[in-house]
């Protein structure tokens, strides 16, 4: 017997419509099991994974090139605390390799000790910055913060060789281990990175000990309200009640750390700090940030601040990636600062810390 069947345009159309209708019917019926417990068919898992890998490789081409000092210890340290609070919960860590909740997710979040060998830095940056759809992997809260994305990439690259002890020291900080009473205190989270004295931990963090209380309060408030972009700090400040933020600001303001005033010397940085660069319309930093008892208290103290932090902030302000209201004034001023001036003035202020307060690890 021979069945003859001719494919015509009209029949093809009917067929497509029928298949579409069947699809809608299946979706409507609710028979599709979207339970995470059901997992994926192998072919689905393979297809989704292949699409994801190709997408990351392609879109990584649009990521900026990594900084020259990508793998510096300060970068690694900077992202460690955030990794512990925001990432290790699903991906595990050297200190806690197999979080149980992750085992019942679909797809199961991979342990990240192999990530650095699988992906290039720019591919990692792509994943960290933009997340991955349909997997539960979120995007970076402040995607414009290249510096934070690269810090996280640096941390991921260091992760495979990290012992559990190393990890704990980086992610929980030195103060944390011996300060059990801090448990369930918001300060515990702060101290993981900033320590109990708010020091810079070798250039990984800004010095916040001794900072102006009004400035710290305004900054935490801006993080909490999403006015100051930071994947680390918006996440940290997000769930903390305003009254608690005030208490934290008062606490760190009361710690030793930043100096009360700066001592002029004959360096270029000192000249910029005390006299500005009049030829380029750059006013003296000290006119707002100086040691006047009458200085506006929401303007931050700079004496003794970490050089890398000052330089990074000035660069962000120069770019305009710091939309705080007061940062607009600084955007206007920073855009007149050449790179050498940024480095000189950052270096000058970092030297202004009273020796007794210095407590770098």
């Amino acid at each position: 017997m021979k069945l003859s069947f001719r494919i015509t345009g009209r029949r093809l159309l009917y067929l497509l419509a029928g298949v579409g209708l069947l699809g809608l019917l299946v979706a409507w019926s609710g028979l599709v099991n979207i339970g995470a417990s059901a997992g994926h068919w192998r072919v689905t898992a393979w297809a989704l994974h292949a699409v994801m890998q190709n997408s990351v490789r392609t879109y990584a081409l649009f990521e900026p090139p990594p900084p020259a000092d990508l793998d510096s210890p300060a970068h690694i340290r900077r992202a460690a605390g955030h990794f512990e609070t925001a990432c290790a919960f699903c991906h595990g860590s050297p200190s806690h390799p197999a979080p149980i909740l992750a085992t019942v997710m679909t797809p199961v979040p991979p342990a990240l000790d192999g990530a650095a060998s699988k992906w290039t830095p720019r591919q990692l940056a792509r994943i960290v910055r933009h997340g991955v759809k349909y997997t539960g992997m979120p995007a970076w809260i402040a995607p414009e913060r290249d510096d934070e994305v690269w810090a996280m990439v640096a941390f991921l690259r260091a992760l495979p060789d990290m012992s559990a002890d190393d990890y704990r020291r980086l992610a929980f900080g030195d103060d944390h281990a011996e300060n059990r009473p801090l448990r369930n205190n918001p300060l515990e989270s702060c101290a993981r990175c900033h320590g109990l004295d708010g020091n810079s931990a070798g250039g990984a963090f800004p010095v916040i000990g001794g900072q102006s209380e009004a400035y710290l309060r305004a900054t935490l408030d801006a993080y909490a309200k999403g006015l100051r972009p930071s994947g680390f700090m918006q996440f940290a400040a997000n769930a903390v009640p305003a009254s608690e933020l005030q208490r934290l600001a008062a606490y760190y303001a009361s710690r030793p750390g930043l100096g009360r005033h700066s001592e002029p010397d004959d360096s270029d940085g000192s000249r910029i700090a005390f006299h500005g660069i009049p030829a380029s319309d750059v006013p003296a930093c000290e006119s707002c940030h100086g040691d006047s008892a009458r200085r506006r208290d929401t303007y931050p103290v700079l004496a003794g601040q970490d050089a890398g932090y000052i330089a990074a902030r000035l660069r962000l302000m120069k770019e305009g990636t710091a939309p705080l209201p007061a940062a607009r004034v600084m955007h206007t001023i920073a855009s007149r600062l050449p790179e050498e001036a940024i480095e000189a003035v950052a270096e000058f202020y970092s030297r202004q810390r009273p020796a007794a307060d210095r407590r770098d690890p």
Partner: protein
Amino acid sequence: MRGSRPGFRAFPRTAGLAGAGMMLGACSGTQSALDPAGREAGEVATLFWVMLVGAAVIWLAVIGTAVFASRWQGRPVSERAGLRLVLWGGAIVPTLVLAALLAYGLRLMPALRAGEPALTVEVTGEQYWWRVSYRGPDGAAIESGNELRLPAGHAAEILLTSADVIHSFWIPSLAGKLDMIPGRTNRLVLHPERIGTYRGVCAEFCGRSHTFMAFTVIVMEPAAFEAWLARQAAPAATAADEGAFLANGCGGCHSVRGTPATGTIGPDLTHLADRAMLGAGLFANTPENLRRFVAEAEEVKPGSRMPSFGMLPPQDLDAITAYLGSLR
């Protein structure tokens, strides 16, 4: 043209009257080269009128010749007469007229340079304002900005330069314009004669707020000028609180003599309340405008080098406004 539509004939008359009205309107006032208030502007105006009358005579002669040739002269002139006309009308007479005008114009120039000035003022053009520096009787500099005061009847030497791009210094009521060139000092001598308030402008496109780069010129009685200069040399006399002004960093760019504010980037504000205008001729000097300029400098004056301080709490803006408004 004859016998054309009446409406068409009426139009030029109306337009001509309106145009003449507008032009006459520009003939007097605080910024007019045709209403001179100083010797140099007077010479420029005279030169202009001489040129205008000369041009009118020549124009009438040329048009008259054309009308004569086309209406009344029936037959063609001989080739010899034609050549003579071209030689005299096209070469000899224009050369004589232009030479005479050149000699007359050149004769005016030494007067612009001459004189042993009683007063020297340095004026520096900056985007988009004027740094004005007087020399006191003891030779010390007295800083001001966006306002130039001169004694009537005395020669004043203005030394012009620029801090950034080329500007041009022009007080139409007092003199012709002179460029301000970075790295070079141009000298202009003014002999203001008529007491009054005039307007000076930047006459060379210098950037986004070029049009907002003007200044006030006040020609005063010599005795009043001396008294004013002595007051100007003194520190600010104010009872208002300078706290907000200093705490918010205004002193990083501005000076108020007698206070810790010693910035030299922006205009000296020591006697700001004495000035008629704000922001280099942008606004009248009222408290509302002062507050607005502090809060929105970058918005109201595009390209302004001063950041907007609108983020300050209202009470700080009020305190700064009150303080600046008290600086006499």
